[in-house]
């Protein structure tokens, strides 16, 4: 995360621009930067995606492992999130430096998915009370240039869309012992329904207005931001105020409204894009980091 120093004059320039719905890079207040998505980039995972948003780069890998369900909810699988702020992004993250940010980000992700409809956890159950699929969602931050939350949530959605969980057969012998057998056929797999997976929209309050997808400069001018996780039908699964300042209740309501509108509009093109990429299947040229 390159630290930016913004002088007073620059701040005034950015603030006045945003007041007139024109940002430093020419965007309007509700526009995202250029975004690139590619799925299936790491073959050791069950699903992966790479998202770049401006200079922010995120890689998400999903691994499915068989585990034991939680005692209170025996008939459901669960998700585990881990955010690795690698030193690649900034030397400050070296050693244990990135851990704090990593836990903060993963805590938000747990909150975003802590409801019954974001992901059908029942479909991850193998045999109630004994075995279930645990989806390890590992986020790797490669470069930070503002708006981490949005980039991560989009990458997670894309990676879950790409996730292929092998089918399992349970055979039980005469003594009541159960044996789990994984399907050998790589095409015989289960997909995760990602329709309801929310996307996070971060709204940054700059002056009297708020902007979507703030750059680091804009973030330096703002007092506080609001993050909102929105599903495709407009349900809000998580909202949170971040950043040092406080906000007026009225502006929170305005920001929620914008967040919902922007978030809802984000889902349709994203799903279309993912399906398009999926339909290319073998004809697709994998670029990864090579371009």
């Amino acid at each position, binding site marked *: 995360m390159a630290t930016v120093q913004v002088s007073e004059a620059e701040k005034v320039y950015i603030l006045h621009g945003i007041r007139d719905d024109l940002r430093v890079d020419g965007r309007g207040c509700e526009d995202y930067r250029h975004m690139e998505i590619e799925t299936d980039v790491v073959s050791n995972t069950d699903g992966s995606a790479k998202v770049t948003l401006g200079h922010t780069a995120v890689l998400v890998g999903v691994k499915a492992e068989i585990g034991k369900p939680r*005692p*209170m*909810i025996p008939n459901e699988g669960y998700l585990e999130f881990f955010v690795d702020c690698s030193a690649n992004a900034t030397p400050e993250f070296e050693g244990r430096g990135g851990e704090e940010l990593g*836990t*903060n980000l*993963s*805590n938000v992700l747990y*909150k*975003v998915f*802590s*409801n*019954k*409809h974001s992901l059908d956890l029942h479909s991850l159950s193998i045999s109630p009370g004994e075995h279930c699929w645990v989806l390890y969602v590992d986020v790797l931050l490669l470069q930070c240039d503002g708006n981490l939350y949005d980039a991560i949530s989009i990458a997670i959605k894309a990676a879950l869309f790409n996730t292929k969980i092998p089918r399992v057969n349970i055979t039980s012998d005469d003594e009541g012992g159960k044996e789990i057998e994984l399907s050998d056929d790589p095409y015989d797999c289960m997909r995760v329904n990602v329709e309801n997976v929310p996307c996070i929209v971060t709204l940054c309050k700059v002056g009297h207005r708020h902007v979507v997808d703030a750059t680091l400069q804009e973030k330096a001018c703002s007092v*506080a931001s*609001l993050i909102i996780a929105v599903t495709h039908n*407009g*349900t*809000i*699964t*998580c*909202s*949170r*105020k*971040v*950043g*040092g*300042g*406080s*906000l*007026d*209740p009225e502006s*929170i*309501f305005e920001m*929620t*409204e914008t967040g*919902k509108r922007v978030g809802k509009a984000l889902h349709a093109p994203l799903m279309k894009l993912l399906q398009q990429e999926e339909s290319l299947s073998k004809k697709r040229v994998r670029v990864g980091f090579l371009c």
Partner: protein
Amino acid sequence: MPTDTKRVRGPDVSQSPVLLGYKPAAVLASRGPREDGRQRDQVDVRPVFVRCGLVSQAKGSAYIEAGNTKLISCVYGPRETDRKDETDMKSGRLTTDVRFAPFSCPERVPWIQGSQDKDLSLMLHESLQPAVCLQRYPRSQIDVSVMVLENSGSALAHAVTCASLALADAGIEMYDLVLGCSLQQVGSSYVVDPSYLEENGWRCNSSESRGGLTVAFLPSLNQISGLQSDGEMSEETLTAGVRTCIEGCYKLYPVIQKVLTKAVRRAAPPST
């Protein structure tokens, strides 16, 4: 302590038997009166008991009790910063630390700070920071610690209230007090200041959508310093929920003010 690896011990992970035989009763129904007799769909916060200045060694402290939720908060400082390389010449540093006592929840909580505690600490920090005049304390650090003695729901909301009271008791300059209030939405109805069961019971049954919301509010400045929601809510319910929580904060305000004046009076009795 070195553990004896040679002896055969119990399983690595143990679970409380409470969880296995746990059957949430009708308390979670979205209709009818609440378990503790409070009203649904109304700003019916639990009556609170609040006291200031009970920890003599801390600069400031406060204790809050709302129903069975009991918290204690201590403030230390302002003092020199621990990490010299991060000394800020223009403003002070506020550090927050929220911990659950091992016996505070139905399930035993380990002493080591887990990710839930860290998350709450961060939320507390976010909520308190806008209220404290940190520029008055350059190159120094103010430590706020909150210990949850018994968690019977809405721990974060009461932690915010309690910590801001402790800050005020410590004589730290603040723009305003910070009050916290939380709300649980179940289907189309809501409960204000939910109890532990109302907060966590959804995990087991109920097909209805639900959501939780916590707001930290600066009453005299009319500003929201902390907001957190999870679960599922529509935009309208979220907006309405925030309004309800603000109302809940205002209900708490006179009580907190009274406690604070009482503490000040005791510390410096009016000379007659």
